[in-house]
Structures are given as structure tokens and as C-alpha cells.
């Protein structure tokens, strides 16, 4: 990697992103001050787990935190507060501190503030209690609907927004251990692009039995807590829990309100390691790419980084791969690089780690100290850098933090002390491409109608060709029968299903690979593999890998010692995206986003952003879902006629070009709030679409509702054109639903030359609209 870079000095203030508030809660303590004091002293914060029974496990300690009984003052009702899970409570603690630190008031609240969160387990506590009751007392439905609703990852974001009384688009990135860093990077990009003045970003994860048993089954946990990252005899990680939030805003905005600037976000790099689902590339190739990309954006050389907060899990493979990456990145300067892993003090916070360690790095910068890794006895020979083993005071101007996740999602953030003038490179062409310049040049689908677009088109044209829903009854239970539409077995041999990466993969991963391979096509796949196309992947869903999750949790409850290690890695939200990236040859950026099914629009928006930022040349956007009795029963709680469906669809997006379909407009997804109730919001986004210069008039409308939805019907009452309702046709596809609509719409636009409109109404709190037009045929 060539250093130094050419730099540009006159970066506009509206595009510089600064941190004006930070909040944190970990096992080290509640809030900035307690954590600074603990990390400065190199204190260790582990104790025996009290949240669940660990008697059947190899390990019984973790960085369990002491959650205060009450919450800081907030706008939630007592009833709402009584229903909050542990993870959300942590999130509200960290969020309230960051918000107050920034000094945001009603004036800032008046504008939408995007909320970007990273998590890996979300409200797993509620999912687990839902599962226990559903499997042990299926006849008792009391409380299940509340658990099912609040388990949805989106709900935790909404609770935080309601607690602080603000609104804005929500993006939840579930990139395993890189999630929190990706969320901060994503929020930075929103401001840097000039779309928002402010964003609220961070990450959280609470300890949960399923995750604890999972890591234990993989023998990834050290039986000798505290863990010893970078020690020659390290033998695993310890889990921890917590949350951290950052208030981010443009320099222009921070100056205008006279806010104290804590630091500037100067670099963000992200890459994909497709070596193995649970093991990093031994030479740290993807780690090196993430660090180099962040440095390039920051215009900083490695020797200018005063403190590097490593991912440093304490597992044999991670630390040596990361150490190799640091050596390669720093070159002859490696001895000067001061590195530590704070996981030695508080454990690995998974989806919360990236955000919590970003705040710890910020502490080092603000308070001029290096948090140590005190548990090392014999440093591994990979430690040719300056491993910080004792607390040290130091002048710290630039900090770098690494987060390398399960499934190969890698992210690096760099923060710098604020300086009036800053010479930075712009890592991407600084021209805002209109959404309309984005082409959809390929699409594919796996649905209950079959594998491939042809079977979906046939089902739309001749609905009678589709088989009746099957009636599913849970084995050994007298529960009400469920109506289900499963993806049929492929009628022809699909060679990719025999790929070793997919052998153990969950159904959802297979569906999405099928859809993505169809969307990308053979010629482009070759170009990706030869390095001609840098490919990104965005995956969106609501529930994810529920099938393996419920099997694994069932096993862990029966006997944790016999829970299947083969299942656990496949339960992680980003496992399908990881398989997909590996099979397609994606080494650039990949995100898995979870939440409301209208997140598929957010996924397209993220893809468009990456293309504009020149992070990649093409992006596969996938939405998917798989059948599991657990989720199907949960949906039945809200309407017994719901047909639960599974499958996936994918779009291939690129910038410019002659072929295909134009992504003409993306409206929303916008969030329902008290001020904008559901019906109003759906009508509003529909009206925005209808004012798009008559494009809607001659189009086909793809509606979403899988059962009666008066709000959606009312919003589109005046629409005169042809309508297609895939929800009624195929069933409730959740994360796949809007992806199916978009793939079918793209196909129709391509064949007919006429526009199509997709009404994307989420089941939780969001709605939006997509308009597709024929490229060059307007």
C-alpha cells in the first residue's frame, strides 16, 4: 500500500464529521467516567454469570454488568419501560448519556436524526423466553405476542428513539462482531454525503444463554477467565455485554451551535474475509484491506496512529491473523505501533464491541492514556508491535480501532483530535450521483413457486399453477395447524448446492445463493472472480436463520454439553451473507441489515451509496426468509389466516450502463411515529410516488399486503393501473416479500418497457415506495 497519499486540504465543513457526544455502559461501569477510570487502571471486570444457568457449560464467567434498577429520565411510559429487555435498557443508558453529552435539544429533535445501530443478538432474552414457552407450554399464549413484537430488532431502535423523543430512519447492521463499527461508519457516510446534519450511532449486545452456549460449543471460550489476548498461551475469548452510542454531526452544525467537539471521524474501512465462516485468513488479508482503506480515507500513515485498539479476541487464530495484518500494514514502523486489546478487561461484546471499543479509543484520545492488556504473561511472537501491557499516559492524537467479525465482516474506524484545518483524502468521487443513475441489471428469485424468475412469473400470470399451501402441524403438539408455502426442492440439479460452504448452511443461505447467482449472471460472476468487478453484498431480513436458531437453542436447553457446534455459526445473522460473499467472490464491503421488511429499500439505498462512493463496482442486494414453526406460530398470533412463506430474491445494482432497468426513485422507508401514524405515513409515501411526473400513471403497482391492509388499500385507492399482489399470491414472505416485489417489478419493466411501482409496507414501523423505469425508454 503506497504511503503517503496525495491529499486534498479544502474539505468542506459540511462534509467533515465530528463526535459531539459519547455514552457507554460495560461491566467496567456505567458512563464515561467510571469506564475511563477502570481502563486507565487496567482493571479486570469479570464475574460468575448470574443471568442464566451455566452449570452444564465448560465456562461460567463473563463480563456481566450490573444494570442499575432504574433508567435515566426518558420519555417512555411506565408500561413501555416495564416491557423492556436487558439489551434495550443498556442501549437507553448509553444513548441518554451520549445525547446529553452532545447537548442536543428540541431544535435538533425537530429534524429527522438517522439512527444506526449494530447488534448481533438484539433482544435475544425475549426470543429465548418466547421459545421456552412455545416449546414447553404451547397451549399458553399469554405474553407471547408482546415477546414476539419486542423481539424484533427494530423495536429496540424504536424504544431508544421514543425514550429520547426523536425520529428518523433506522438502520440496524448485524455484521456480527463488526456491527457496531459498521453502524458508526454508515452514520458517518450519511453526514459526509451531505444528506443529514446529524446521526446517532452505536451498538449493543447483552449476554444470552443461546449465544453463550454457542461459543462454548465451539470451544471458543477460555476456561481460564480473564482472557489473554496476544499471549502465546491464549486459549479463547470471554464474553461480555454492554452498549455505546455516539452523537455525530457535521462540523458546520457543531460549530453553529457552539458544541464541544470531542474528535473527528476521519477514516472508515470495511472489507470481507471469505476464508472461512469462523476463521480469519491466516495472513490477515481482509484485516489489512480494512485498515489500509481507513488510513487512505484519513490521509494518515500507520506511524501517525498513536493507539490501536485491536479486535484482539484472545482466540488462537484471531490474534495471530490480526498481528500479521498489523505487521504488514505498518511495515518498518511496526515497532512504534502501540496496540492493546480491551477485551482482556471486559470481554467480547460481539455486536456491541465495535461501538464500545470506538468509545474506548475515544477515551484514550480525550484523556491521553493507553488502556492496557494486563493479562499477557508471554507475548506471542507475532507481537513485533508495542503491546501495551501496563497502564500508560501518552499524548494521543489519532486512534484506530479494529473490529473483525464472525463470517468475515471486517471494519476499521479512525478518530483524530479536532484540528481547524485538516488535510484529508476523499476516498470516493465526491459527486453525488442521483439514484436514477443506478441500474438494476440483473434479478433472481427463489419462491414457493420454484427456483428462478421463470417460475415466479408463471405463478403471477397463472396463479392457479401454484400449489395450495401445505398444512403444517408441529410434531407431538396439538397446536393449531399453520398454513405454509415452502420453497420446493429444485427440479433440476443445482451444482452450487453441493459447494462445501453450503453443506452446513441454513435454508435461507441456499435460497439467497440461488437468487443471487441468477441476478448476477455467469458473465458478471466471471468478472467478479477475475477482479474486474469489485462486488459488494447487502443482505436484508426480518427474522434470519430461525430454523437453526430454534434447533440449537432447543439442544442447549436440553443439554448444553451436547448442543451442536455445527449449527451455531449458521444461526448468526450474517452467516448467509458470508456464504454468499464467499461463493460470489466479494472481498469488498458487505452488510447484513435486519429489522422491518421495508429494510430492503434501505439495502438498495446502501448499495447505491457504495456505488457512488466507489467502494465497489456492483452490488448484490438480497432479501430472504426461511420457514420455521417458531416464527410461523408467532405470525399466527396476529392473524390465523396468514400463510407463512419462504424464499429470497436478489437484485444486481451498478452505476450507469446501457442495459436493464433504472432505479428511478426510492421513497423512504419512513418511520411511523406518534406524529405520523401508520395510515398517514403509507398515504404520504404513496402521494410522493404519485407526484413523480406521471410515471406512476402507466405503471403496474406491486402491493405488499399478505392479508387485509386497509391502510395500504386506502393509500393507493386512486391508482388506476394494473395491480399485482405477491403477498396474497405467495404468502407472507417477511424479509423476502419486498425483494420478491422488486425482482418481479424489474422483470416486468424489462419485458414491457413500462414503469412499475412497488409499495413497500413493513410489518413493523416503516413504509416506502420504489419506482422502476425502463432505462433509456422514458
Amino acid at each position, binding site marked *: 500500500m503506497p504511503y503517503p497519499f496525495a491529499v486534498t486540504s479544502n474539505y468542506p465543513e459540511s462534509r467533515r464529521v465530528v463526535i459531539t457526544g459519547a455514552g457507554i455502559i460495560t461491566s467496567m461501569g456505567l458512563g464515561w467516567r467510571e469506564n475511563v477510570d477502570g481502563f486507565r487502571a487496567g482493571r479486570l471486570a469479570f464475574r460468575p454469570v448470574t443471568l442464566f444457568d451455566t452449570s452444564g457449560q465448560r465456562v461460567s464467567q463473563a463480563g456481566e454488568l450490573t444494570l442499575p434498577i432504574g433508567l435515566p429520565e426518558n420519555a417512555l411510559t411506565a408500561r413501555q419501560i416495564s416491557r423492556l429487555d436487558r439489551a434495550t435498557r443498556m442501549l437507553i443508558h448509553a444513548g441518554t448519556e451520549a445525547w446529553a453529552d452532545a447537548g442536543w435539544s428540541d431544535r435538533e429533535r425537530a429534524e429527522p436524526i438517522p439512527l444506526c445501530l449494530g447488534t448481533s443478538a438484539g433482544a435475544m432474552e425475549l426470543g429465548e423466553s418466547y421459545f421456552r414457552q412455545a416449546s414447553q407450554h404451547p397451549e399458553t399464549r399469554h405474553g407471547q405476542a408482546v415477546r414476539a413484537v419486542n423481539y424484533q430488532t427494530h423495536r429496540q431502535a424504536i424504544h431508544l428513539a421514543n425514550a429520547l423523543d426523536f425520529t428518523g430512519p433506522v438502520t440496524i447492521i448485524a455484521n456480527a462482531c463488526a456491527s457496531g463499527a459498521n453502524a458508526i461508519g454508515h452514520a458517518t457516510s450519511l453526514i459526509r454525503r451531505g444528506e443529514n446534519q446529524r446521526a446517532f450511532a452505536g451498538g449493543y449486545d447483552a449476554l444470552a444463554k443461546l449465544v453463550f452456549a454457542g461459543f462454548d*460449543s*465451539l*470451544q471458543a471460550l477460555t476456561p481460564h477467565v480473564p482472557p489473554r489476548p496476544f499471549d502465546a498461551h491464549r486459549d479463547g475469548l470471554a464474553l461480555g455485554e454492554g452498549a455505546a452510542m455516539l452523537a455525530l454531526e457535521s462540523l458546520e452544525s457543531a460549530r453553529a451551535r457552539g458544541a464541544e467537539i470531542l474528535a473527528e471521524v476521519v477514516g472508515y474501512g470495511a472489507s470481507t474475509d471469505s476464508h*472461512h*465462516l*469462523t*476463521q480469519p485468513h491466516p495472513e490477515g488479508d481482509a484485516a489489512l484491506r480494512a485498515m489500509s482503506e481507513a488510513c487512505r480515507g484519513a490521509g494518515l500513515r500507520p506511524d501517525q496512529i498513536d493507539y490501536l485498539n485491536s479486535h484482539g479476541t484472545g482466540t488462537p487464530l484471531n490474534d495471530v491473523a490480526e498481528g500479521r495484518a498489523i505487521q504488514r500494514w505498518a511495515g518498518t514502523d511496526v515497532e512504534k505501533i502501540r496496540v492493546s486489546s480491551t477485551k482482556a478487561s471486559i470481554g467480547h461484546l460481539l455486536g456491541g464491541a465495535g461501538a464500545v471499543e470506538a468509545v474506548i479509543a475515544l477515551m484514550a484520545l480525550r484523556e491521553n492514556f493507553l488502556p492496557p492488556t494486563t493479562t499477557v504473561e508471554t507475548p506471542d511472537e507475532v507481537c513485533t508491535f508495542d503491546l501495551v501491557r501496563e497502564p500508560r499516559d501518552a499524548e494521543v492524537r489519532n486512534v484506530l480501532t479494529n473490529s473483525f467479525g464472525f463470517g468475515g465482516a471486517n471494519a476499521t474506524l479512525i478518530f483524530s483530535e479536532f484540528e481547524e484545518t485538516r488535510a484529508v483524502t476523499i476516498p470516493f468521487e465526491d459527486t453525488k450521483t442521483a439514484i436514477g443513475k443506478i441500474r438494476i441489471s440483473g434479478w433472481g428469485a427463489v419462491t414457493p413457486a420454484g427456483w428462478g424468475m421463470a417460475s415466479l412469473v408463471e405463478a403471477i400470470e397463472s396463479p392457479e399453477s401454484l400449489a395450495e399451501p401445505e398444512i403444517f402441524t408441529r410434531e407431538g403438539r396439538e397446536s393449531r395447524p399453520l398454513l405454509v408455502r415452502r420453497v420446493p426442492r429444485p427440479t433440476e440439479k443445482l451444482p452450487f448446492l*453441493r459447494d*462445501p460452504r453450503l*453443506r*452446513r448452511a441454513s435454508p435461507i443461505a441456499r435460497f439467497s445463493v440461488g437468487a443471487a447467482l441468477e441476478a448476477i449472471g455467469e458473465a458478471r460472476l466471471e468478472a467478479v472472480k477475475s477482479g474486474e468487478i469489485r462486488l459488494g453484498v447487502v443482505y436484508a431480513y426480518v427474522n434470519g436463520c430461525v430454523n437453526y436458531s430454534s434447533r440449537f437453542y432447543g439442544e442447549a436447553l436440553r443439554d448444553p*454439553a*451436547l*448442543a*451442536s*457446534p*455445527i449449527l451455531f*455459526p449458521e444461526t448468526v445473522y450474517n452467516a448467509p451473507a458470508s456464504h454468499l460473499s464467499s461463493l460470489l467472490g466479494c472481498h469488498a464491503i458487505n452488510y447484513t441489515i435486519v429489522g422491518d421488511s421495508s429494510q430492503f429499500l434501505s439495502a438498495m439505498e446502501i448499495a447505491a451509496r457504495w456505488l457512488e462512493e466507489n467502494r465497489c463496482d456492483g452490488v448484490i442486494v438480497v432479501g430472504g426468509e426461511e420457514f420455521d414453526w417458531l416464527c410461523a406460530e408467532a405470525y399466527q398470533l396476529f392473524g390465523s389466516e396468514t400463510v407463512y412463506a419462504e424464499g429470497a430474491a436478489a437484485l444486481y445494482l451498478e452505476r450507469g450502463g446501457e442495459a436493464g432497468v433504472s432505479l428511478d426513485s426510492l421513497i423512504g422507508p419512513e418511520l411511523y411515529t406518534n406524529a405520523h401514524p401508520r395510515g398517514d405515513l403509507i398515504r404520504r409515501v404513496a402521494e410522493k410516488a404519485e407526484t413523480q411526473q406521471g410515471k406512476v400513471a402507466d405503471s403496474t403497482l406491486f402491493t405488499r399486503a399478505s392479508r387485509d391492509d386497509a391502510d395500504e388499500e386506502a393509500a393507493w385507492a386512486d391508482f388506476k393501473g394494473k395491480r399485482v399482489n405477491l403477498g396474497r399470491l405467495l404468502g407472507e414472505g417477511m424479509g423476502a416479500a419486498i425483494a420478491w416485489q422488486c425482482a418481479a417489478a424489474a422483470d416486468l419493466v424489462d419485458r414491457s418497457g413500462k414503469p412499475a411501482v412497488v409499495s413497500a409496507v413493513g410489518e413493523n414501523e416503516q413504509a416506502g415506495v420504489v419506482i422502476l423505469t425502463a432505462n433509456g425508454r422514458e
Partner: protein
Amino acid sequence: MSEENPDSLQHRIKSVMIDELMLQETPEEIADDEPLFGPEGLGLDSVDALQLVVALEKNFSLKIPDAEAAKGVLTNVNTIAEAIERSGR
């Protein structure tokens, strides 16, 4: 491949492996002395090894105490069969 006795210990081990490791092969396609790990054999990895340890305990009450012992036992189907026989089941 020759017909196998479905009651043989080797055959039962292969059935358990196919089931628990989600293998695409049939028992007949796996040779008794075929290496389990590495590109020359079945191509299993470290996650499969952990699963196999759990599966052998669950199905054959074979306890494999540590990674060192696992290396010896999990070489091929024959070595697994020998370990089960040694454990007296």
C-alpha cells in the same frame, strides 16, 4: 463400492456422520480408511470435528476428553470404530 452390512459398526458410524455433519455422500461412498480431514479425504474442518465429538458421545457414548485424543480417534471411520470398541460399548 461393495455392499456394506448396515448393522456393522462402521456403517452405523457413517450414518451418524452423514446425518450430523449434513454430508451429501451415502455410507457406501465413504471408505472405512478414507481420511476425514483435508482435501484428500472427506474435507471436514475443525467445526465438523467438534460436532463429531458431540455426535459420538450422543450416539455411541464415546467420550473424547481433549484435542490430543480427538486427533488420534478422528482419523478415519476405522479409528473411530476402534475407539468405540475399546470403550467397551
